[in-house]
């Protein structure tokens, strides 16, 4: 049994090449997912085909498809735990039945009728003396996204956490199917507001791969500038948010001010605080505004002053570290099994960064460090974000110092084809896959948020912890609701 993807494709195949295989071969994939030889990247359906995107230890990538017969396809969920929620979603969205799946409860589909009443949902049973349940959400006391958390606790100790998501399901795949490319790009940019650049970039790269478009060098550099600004701003927001959940509001206010300065500089440079719709298939939609030079110089000076000071503040506040150290530990084995990317995976010793490991321009020609920590607790996730923020600031300086001249956008021909891309957002790797109809429209598109493989780890990390530590732990993951709920 081969354990490399390269052996399963003809030599010189392009990245994310796709092969239709038999049900028997499909089950062979399940074995290799179970053994850990392959990592699940995405799993979605386009009836009658069911696709799975995989990556092997050597870094090769590939997509396999199996045809559903009589609306049924062989499940990967028995062998691969990260596939389970994805298969429940496939069942919800397409009606295809995963045969032999261990969990057939709906996931994104809450079965709401016109009056808004939802179908009852069966939470997993828990047995034991003196256990009680705490239901939190989907409406919370603060202004945050909706998700339901069902805790089973023995006093203060959490015995089990079960998540229920899907409250912000937008029907993104349905909206994108048949949409013109431009509308598709706008929808992709709105999949998850805080990662709008990364989503746009993933979608654009997938379209470009499908059409064979070469993006002009200036656009490539500007895309990376936007992506790094987004990462920097979001990491600062997360660091502040995590500390605030330990009631250390000083860090939140410092981080909020710095983040706000970054966003305002982005608004000045690109005309939008979050740079929404800045990345489009073929290139970018806007150039750097000329007046930005002085603002950029001021911003970098401030970042250089503030980042070390904020890290020192974190390091020097013993009461804060007393909360973060050894709280919410994610084991390396779990991070690896679920293929968790982003700070969650890297803080647990899984050294994966799509910018380096599935390299794309301009990162393929830039040397940069991918920080990895081993401990996997809240503290590690905070520290990792600090180090990644430093890296992003350094990358931004290099990118802006050597901006190539030239056009901003290449023509995207109306061509039939399919393409995929894996892009590193601030939460982790975002996967996008598109199939283009020949008339400049999308036939099908799929976007997979990094949170799909991080939410389940939160359930594991919180087991045995105390109820009051959950918000801190949850914030240190900062998984997406909107991006996950599609």
């Amino acid at each position, binding site marked *: 049994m081969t354990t490399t993807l390269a052996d399963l494709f003809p030599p010189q195949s392009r990245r994310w090449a796709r092969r239709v295989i038999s049900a028997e071969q499909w089950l062979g994939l399940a074995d290799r997912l179970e053994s850990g030889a392959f990592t699940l990247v995405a799993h979605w359906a386009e009836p009658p085909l069911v696709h799975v995107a995989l990556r092997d230890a050597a870094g090769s990538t590939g997509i396999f498809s199996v045809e559903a017969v009589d609306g049924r396809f062989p499940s990967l969920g028995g062998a691969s735990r990260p596939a389970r929620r994805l298969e429940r979603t496939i069942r919800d969205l397409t009606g295809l039945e995963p045969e032999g799946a261990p969990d057939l409860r709906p996931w994104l589909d809450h079965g709401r009728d016109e009056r808004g009443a939802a179908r009852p949902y069966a939470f997993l049973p828990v047995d034991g003396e003196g256990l*009680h*349940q*705490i*239901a*939190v959400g989907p409406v*919370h*006391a*603060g*202004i945050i996204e909706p998700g339901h958390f069902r805790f089973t606790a023995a*006093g*203060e100790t959490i015995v089990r956490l079960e998540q229920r998501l899907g409250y912000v399901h937008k029907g993104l795949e349905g909206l994108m199917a048949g949409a013109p490319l431009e509308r598709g790009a706008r929808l992709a940019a709105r999949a998850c507001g805080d990662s709008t650049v990364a989503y746009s970039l993933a979608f654009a790269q997938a379209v470009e791969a499908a059409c064979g478009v070469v993006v002009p060098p200036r656009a490539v550099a500007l895309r990376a500038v936007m992506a790094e600004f987004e990462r920097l701003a979001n990491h600062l927001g997360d660091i502040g948010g995590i*500390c605030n*959940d*330990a*009631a*250390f*509001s*000083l860090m*939140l*206010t410092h981080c909020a*001010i710095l983040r706000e300065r970054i966003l305002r500089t982005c608004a000045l440079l690109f005309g939008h605080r979050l740079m929404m719709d800045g990345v489009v298939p073929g290139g970018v939609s806007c150039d750097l505004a000329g007046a930005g030079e002085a603002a950029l110089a001021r911003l970098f000076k401030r970042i250089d002053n503030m980042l070390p000071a904020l890290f020192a503040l974190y390091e020097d*506040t013993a*009461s*804060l570290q*007393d*909360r973060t150290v050894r709280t919410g530990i994610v084991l390396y084995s779990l991070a690896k099994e679920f293929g968790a990317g982003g700070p969650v995976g890297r803080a647990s010793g899984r050294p994966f960064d799509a910018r380096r490991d599935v390299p794309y321009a301009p990162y393929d020609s830039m040397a940069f460090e991918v920080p990895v920590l081993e401990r996997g607790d809240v503290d590690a996730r905070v520290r990792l974000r600090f180090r990644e923020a430093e890296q992003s600031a350094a990358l931004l300086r290099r990118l802006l110092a050597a901006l190539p001249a030239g056009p901003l956008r290449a023509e995207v021909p109306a061509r039939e084809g399919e393409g995929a891309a894996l892009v590193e957002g601030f939460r982790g790797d975002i996967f996008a896959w598109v199939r283009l109809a020949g008339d400049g429209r999308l036939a099908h598109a799929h976007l997979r948020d990094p949170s799909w493989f991080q939410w389940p780890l939160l359930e594991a990390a919180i087991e045995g912890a*105390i*109820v*009051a*530590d*959950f*918000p801190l732990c949850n914030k240190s993951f900062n998984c997406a609701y909107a991006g996950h709920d599609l």
Partner: protein
Amino acid sequence: MGLIAAVLATVLQLVLVLALAPFLTGVVRTAKARLQRRRGPGLFQVYRDLSRLLRKEVVIAPNASWLFVAAPYVVFATTVVAAVLIPSFTFDAGLGAAADLIAIVGLLATARFALALAGLDIGTSFGGIGSSREMMIAAVAEPAMLMLIFSLALIAGSTRLPDIALVVQSPGLGLHISLLLAFVGFVMIAVAENGRIPVDNPATHLELTMVHEAMVLEYSGRHLALIEYAGSVKLLLYVSLIGAVFLPWGIAPLGAGLAQGALAVAFYGAKLVAGGCLLGLFEVTTAKMRVFRVPQYIGTALMLGLLAALLQLVSRSL
């Protein structure tokens, strides 16, 4: 004459407590806001919030019993009475004879008991969590408080507040280690009892981490106003208590004139503002501790009280 003055002083004390309590909360919030480089909603926002809540409709869960409705009144009444007992600016108050520290602890325990019952009464998981955490804290905080009071009583020979204050005020006392230990212990207990950081976070929106806020999550309208008001009064009570026992200077003596009384009120106001600002500073520079660390923290206060009492006994027997 003496009786009329005492009654007048008591009424003034009551008015001061009710009028200044929201102001003190406003001072703490404004101090925190300024330290976080925010403008903050201003010193008088708490008054506006209270008047808004008083005018709002009360929503009561269908499964709430009379306990739920009665608790806010019990909490408010007991807390206000306890606060009036503390000599804030004069020793002349008519309730002086009842101004006993053990009585004050008893009144506050009654308020806590009523609120914890109300938290359980409604049957939500958050109310239950809040009540259980509150009682866990109370189980250690009340003995600690009593131990601290005993150490003071050993110094002053009485548990009556005016007596203690007069002894501390007297020039013959000198430097007292026991008093210093008791002071630190009292401040620690005050922070815990008022649900301030690092024990509880009054500003949090995270249901799962709340203690006090979790118990009152179901309250609305005037009930919530009474509970919030009582919270402000309790904070004022502790600042006044620490001011009266450990910094009793500026309190008008028995039979003082009007001018002296006015000066005493000004002194009292200054103590409140200073206490509020210090609390704000402390809260901004500290993270909240884990729930199960709280007993250790309060245990430290208990040990300080024990140490203060022991030192006092030892020094006396020498």
